[in-house]
């Protein structure tokens, strides 16, 4: 019984850490631009494909594939921002337009992959690690899970360092309080937004590649990010610690419901809890502002 419990905790943490890497991307953009960037899922998917083709076609070492995937996604995220959001921003379009454009971009990316020679079939990463789990008694700890957990933790710590300790971080934080105010103080908002998309894109690439290694690569990966978006809302959109805590909690709740009640109730209970949290605390667990954000 206690071994099952321990195993489920590990399962939950592993699922939660994937959600966390994805959720942070949503929160970063939201904190500055006040809208939910649903195209993030598409960027993650492209990141997963870049990692896959780097390993299978270019046959680069594993570490290089990670770098290529992160940078490829980072560039894509910036390009998306330039093409999709900047024109809207220049025209001061309502936030709703941003969300609709983001959804459109996400659908666009998915269908580009389906229509391209890559096609709709799923692909599996070549085996990079031995799939032999590390056994702690009868509790299994997967090597990829461990890697995922470590990479998630390191990249999130680096992100927190950038935001809390660097000058760019300072301008990001300032902009997140007030775009107008920080512009008046001489902060280059375009640059801040550029940085935000670069950071979000890099993380998306890492998340995509980790996801692809753990599971598979297919054009609809973006759909899984719905869960991480929910996790970000759960923890409080716009708050980075909130995104991480929300993700880990969602992962744990899902596994516990599957493990102790029934897997059919997993989404039902997870989403009921989400609604409950939002009713009691509309800004999510760690959210600070109460202003109306889309």
């Amino acid at each position, binding site marked *: 019984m206690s071994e099952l419990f321990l195993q489920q905790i590990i399962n939950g943490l592993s699922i939660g850490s994937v959600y966390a890497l994805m959720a942070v991307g949503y929160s970063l953009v939201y904190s500055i631009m006040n809208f939910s960037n649903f195209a993030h899922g598409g960027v993650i998917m492209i990141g997963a494909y870049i990692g896959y083709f780097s390993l299978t076609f270019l046959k680069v070492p594993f570490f290089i594939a990670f770098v290529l995937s992160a940078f490829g996604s980072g560039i894509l995220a910036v390009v998306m921002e330039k093409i999709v959001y900047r024109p809207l921003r220049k025209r001061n379009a309502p936030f709703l337009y941003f969300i609709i454009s983001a959804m459109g971009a996400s659908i666009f990316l998915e269908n580009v992959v389906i229509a391209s020679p890559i096609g709709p079939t799923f692909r599996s990463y070549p085996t990079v690690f031995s799939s032999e789990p590390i056994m702690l008694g009868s509790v299994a700890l997967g090597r990829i899970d461990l890697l995922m957990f470590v990479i998630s933790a390191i990249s999130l710590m680096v992100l927190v360092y950038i935001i809390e300790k660097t000058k760019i971080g300072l301008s990001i934080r300032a902009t997140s309080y007030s775009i107008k105010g920080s512009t008046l103080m001489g902060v280059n908002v375009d640059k801040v937004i550029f940085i935000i998309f670069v950071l979000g894109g890099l993380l998306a690439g890492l998340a995509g590649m980790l996801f692809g290694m753990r599971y598979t690569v297919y054009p609809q990966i973006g759909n899984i990010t719905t869960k991480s978006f929910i996790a970000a809302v759960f923890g409080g959109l716009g708050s980075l610690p909130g995104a991480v805590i929300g993700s880990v909690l969602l992962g744990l709740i899902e596994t516990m419901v*599957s493990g102790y009640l029934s897997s059919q109730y997993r989404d039902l209970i997870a989403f009921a809890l989400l609604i409950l949290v939002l009713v009691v605390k509309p800004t999510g667990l760690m959210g600070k502002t109460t202003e109306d954000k889309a």
Partner: protein
Amino acid sequence: MKKNVLLIVSVLLIFAMMLTACGGSGTPKASGDTIKIGWIGSLTGDQAVWGTCESNTVKMLIEEVNAKGGLLGKQVEGIYYDTKGDAAEAVNAVKRLITQDDVVAIIGPNASGQAISISAVLEQYKVPDIATVATNPKVTVGDDGKVKPYNFRVCFIDPYQGAVAAGYACDKLGLKNAAILYDVASDYSQGFTEFFEKTFIEKGGKIVAKEGFKEGDVDFRPQLSKIKDAKPDLILMPYYYKEVALSANQARDLGINATLIGGDGWPSEQLMEMAAKSIEGSYVVNHLDFNDPEVKPLQEAYRAKYNLPMELNGYMAHDAFKLLEAAIIDASSADPEKITESLTKVTVEGVTGTIKLSEEDHNPVGKQAAIVKIENADYIFQEKYGLQ
């Protein structure tokens, strides 16, 4: 435009053939010199490979029958129409076969969607149809639970695989504690599971865990951890290869050593690529195995004639034709209604197993399935196995 011309030409040709064949006797149906059998299926589109194989097989068999003197002293003539994989086209093709070509029975199509849509036409004109690989239960039984009088098939239905898997696991492998992981959103997976449970419990086995997931899920470890805790000897995985690959790998990651069993959703190149190690020693229930010695003669005859590999559909078309041949001989008449009656009376040794259609649901009774074991990343045929 080109299509229309082709169609007119073919209709004219068929008329011309009918006229010469009937010698002006005036009543073509069943009283001419030939017995006409229709075939429908995809000759173009995604499923063209399968349809072409079916029609080739039927052509080959008709030639064989005619060389031996035909049926009831008459030559047999096949008429083949393309459904383009479309249900509406299938309905048109059936109408044309019956009203213009006066066929006594129809073989095909292979897809459930088309087989379901043609029922109304068959009932209107009272001509029987034998579907080949249409596995959906609704092909022969209507929504009201009543059997469709003119729809038959030679393949077993999807859920039956569950019963075969349960029987084989219990009786042949001696596994008594089963866990089930299934897709709650899929009819195929649910039907499979339901039949498995029923048979497995009847045989004295125990279901120690039953967990669900939804299509699109990629992480099965919470469910599998729970399954591991129940200590099963076998895990049933009645779903398609993508989820099979993921869940099998995750099960092994968690240290589960139970035997895995699945159905016709498994066999694929990708499954081997992704999970060869995890599914080693697993068993798969399928309609037929290409390495079964009993299917070799047909396989070789087909290859010799067409220089093409034989698909599953060809074997099914073969058995459908043999069943129809037996029914015509049993009825000693080429009257569609009499043939319909005989279809459930005759028993035929087909290449895919013994075929005897049930009167209640027009499905083959206790048909054998091929049991395949995965060894050294290859599908190794074990034996044919059926439940009575």
